[in-house]
């Protein structure tokens, strides 16, 4: 008896299980688990790029999105690309639905960024290589330093030669390739020198956007929808600004893409134009940049009446430059918000449900065999398995979300099944002599492990497709299932077989 016990404890399978258990408990003690948004609370957003992009572009999207959200002062953000079109954004510690919606609009307002001068686009978001921290001086003037690519700098130097004080415009998501229908006063404003910085002889804003973005502006003078549609021929879309809204319905009825922009209460013509075009600036061109020398390190400067306004202006342009490095437009296509308090509920509930399921397994197994020496090892092996899976998850910082928990349940379920297979094979032996019994135990264990390996292999094969190819939440499910099955066949199942052999006197 003593030797049997020692043999069991010194069996490498038992030692391996012990090592894994101790390691997992230690890991969990020092490195708490991180939970998914659906458990801990927060907002999860799925954004889709306008069109499929290559992996370099995707990487760029991810890093600039991360930067942009960081500049908003949000913490616990993960941004993850999946496939060639989907970006998953998770922000923890978001406590209200309004806050969640704000994050959504921030991601969606991520436009495509252009730098334009005299009607020529000399750089896009891709050309912004670095944005420095903005400075605010005591006279309430501010400066945002940034670096543009060599190509953009060279193009700009050529364009800007000798044009001191001319307007430099930046646009975030302008209505490219469109027909803009605006009230007469707005038309006149856009066609004036109001947006020309300090250079009255520079082209007007209307000329600049016309040349740079193929935007045609027309004044609204009671044209019919048909007339407008005719003017818009060949254009991508129609932007209706502060004109009667029934035009929108009529034009949309003709299968045209229409964006309707109403005037906000009390909004001036100037700010309406700025808003519709996504215009930042115009900034007056400093003398240093007009000598024909390409300069990559540039800055945008301005003055404001007070420090707060200066801060606001500087931080706006800072954020725009940062986010502007987004090479493609994103749409939020899915969003889930869970309040943190509810998340906590879910977590305790998942814990209770798990424990209750484990107790159910214990009782049902006991009911079947009427033997605690089978029921207790089976239930505790399952518990060990959960601990080891969780230890692994915390080790590699896996975010435990609901699908991951479902995966753990799946792994435990098949685990119990496999332990029952082992137990039944052990129990089914005939009472014969020791030697033939030993041979028959080996044979029956071989059969049990054939079943176990075959079912583990099918599960892993089925799930690995999910893990590699698919987007969205099923990944977590696949990951924990595979992890659980692997731990099962490599660590816990062999150990259980030894324990069962020992307890059932078959070693």
């Amino acid at each position, binding site marked *: 008896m003593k030797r049997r016990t020692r043999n069991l404890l010194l069996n490498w399978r038992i030692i391996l299980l012990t090592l894994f258990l101790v390691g997992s408990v230690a890991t969990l003690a020092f490195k708490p688990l991180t939970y998914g948004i659906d458990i801990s609370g927060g907002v999860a957003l799925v954004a889709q790029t306008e069109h499929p992009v290559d992996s370099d572009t995707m990487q760029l999207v991810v890093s600039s999105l991360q930067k942009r959200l960081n500049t908003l002062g949000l913490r616990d953000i993960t941004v993850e690309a999946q496939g060639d079109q989907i970006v998953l954004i998770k922000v923890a510690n978001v406590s209200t639905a309004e806050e969640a919606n704000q994050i959504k609009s921030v991601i969606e307002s991520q436009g495509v960024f252009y730098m334009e001068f005299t009607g020529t686009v000399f750089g896009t978001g891709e050309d912004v290589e670095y944005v420095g921290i903005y400075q605010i001086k005591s006279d309430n003037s501010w400066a945002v330093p940034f670096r543009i690519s060599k190509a953009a700098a060279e193009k700009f130097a050529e364009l800007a030669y000798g044009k001191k004080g001319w307007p430099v415009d930046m646009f975030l998501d302008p209505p490219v390739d469109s027909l803009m229908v605006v009230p007469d006063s707005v038309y006149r404003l856009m066609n004036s020198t109001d947006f020309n910085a300090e250079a009255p002889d520079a082209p007007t804003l209307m000329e600049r956007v016309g040349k740079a973005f193929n935007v045609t502006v027309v004044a609204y003078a009671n044209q019919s929808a048909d007339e407008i549609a005719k003017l818009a021929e060949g254009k991508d879309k129609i932007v209706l600004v502060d004109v009667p809204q029934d035009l929108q319905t009529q034009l949309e009825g003709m299968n045209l893409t229409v964006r309707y922009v109403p005037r906000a209460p009390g909004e001036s013509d100037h700010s309406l134009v700025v808003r519709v075009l996504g215009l930042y600036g115009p900034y007056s061109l400093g003398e240093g940049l007009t000598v024909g020398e390409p300069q990559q390190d540039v800055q945008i400067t301005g003055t404001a009446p007070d420090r707060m306004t200066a801060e606001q202006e500087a931080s706006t342009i800072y954020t725009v430059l940062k986010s502007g490095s987004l090479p493609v437009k994103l749409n939020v296509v899915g969003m889930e918000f869970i309040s943190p308090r*509810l998340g906590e509920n879910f977590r305790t509930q998942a814990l209770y449900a798990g424990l209750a399921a484990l107790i159910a397994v214990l009782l049902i197994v006991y009911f079947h065999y009427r033997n605690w020496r089978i029921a207790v090892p089976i239930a505790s092996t399952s518990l060990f398995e959960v601990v080891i899976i969780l230890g692994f998850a915390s080790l590699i910082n896996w975010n435990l979300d609901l699908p991951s928990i479902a995966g753990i349940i799946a792994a435990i379920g098949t685990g119990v099944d496999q332990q029952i297979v082992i137990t039944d094979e052990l129990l089914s032996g005939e009472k014969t002599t020791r030697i033939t019994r030993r041979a028959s135990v080996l044979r029956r264990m071989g059969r049990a492990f054939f079943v176990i390996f075959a079912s583990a292999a099918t599960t892993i094969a089925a799930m690995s497709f999910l893990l590699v190819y*698919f987007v969205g939440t099923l990944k977590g499910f696949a990951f924990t299932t595979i992890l659980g099955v692997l731990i099962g066949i490599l660590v816990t199942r062999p150990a259980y077989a030894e324990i069962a052999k020992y307890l059932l006197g078959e070693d």
Partner: protein
Amino acid sequence: MSKPKSKAKPTAGDAVRARKRKKLGFLAEMEYKKMILYPLVVFLVALILLAVNFPTLGIDLQGGVVVTAYGIDANPDELAKTLSAQLGVDVRVESFTSVDTSGIRVYAPVGTDPTEIIKILKHDYPNAEYTHSEVQPTFGKIAQQQGIRALVFAFLAMAVVVFLFFRNLVPSMTIIFSALSDMAIAVALMGLFGIELTTATIAALLMLIGYTVDSNILLTTKLLRRKDDTLDEAYLSAVSTGFTMSTTTLGALLVLWIISTSQTIDNIAIVLIFGLLADFMNTWVLNAGVLKWYLSNPARGGSE
């Protein structure tokens, strides 16, 4: 603790197993033609059910808005009327209760602002906990395609592995067919009980592949690799093991379903329960029937 080795085997277990075998004996006495026929009829019925009453797609697969309020006890019909009137869109309201909380779910069409719904609800129920989610139809479509692809690929992968393990056409095909039938029946039952097809329930269907193949592999292995047992003996021993496996899993899932208030976990649990029930028939009746018929041909391992 110390027992002489020759008596080490627990005798209580033997008695229990004997009883269980007796109880399940009716399965062994069934004629294999019937064993094959009945499950096939059920499979066909499931297919017909699927054709006339396919489960509805959840919002994560077709797009829409859901607002969930926990800690509310409200009349769903009245609430739906109020909300529809105030929002100007048709909404559907469902109430749910669980062990420690109750609440409502508001389903609204794509484009509805969830914060508006919450604002209206907050007016009457300021203390409820709110969560919301919205999915655009475009993403729903992607999720749909991915879900279908996931199921197809996982199924094919399972089929290939089963073939590799058994290298025997008839037993392998039977395992694969019974997994297919399990899934079909589970989905048909989802339609019958009004459970939506969502990413989570697709995950559950994927899980089914793992669970159901287990018992089939067990049965096939026992019958094909039996050495000195008779066919019926091997079958009964497999059934008794399988019965233990299924009831344990079913029990655990039932507990999970009762205790959890998370819709995701609830739905996963119930779909698995459906599938496991279907699997009980497909493994121990259909698969066993086919194997009995297959093995009763003396050339393939002999009959008694």
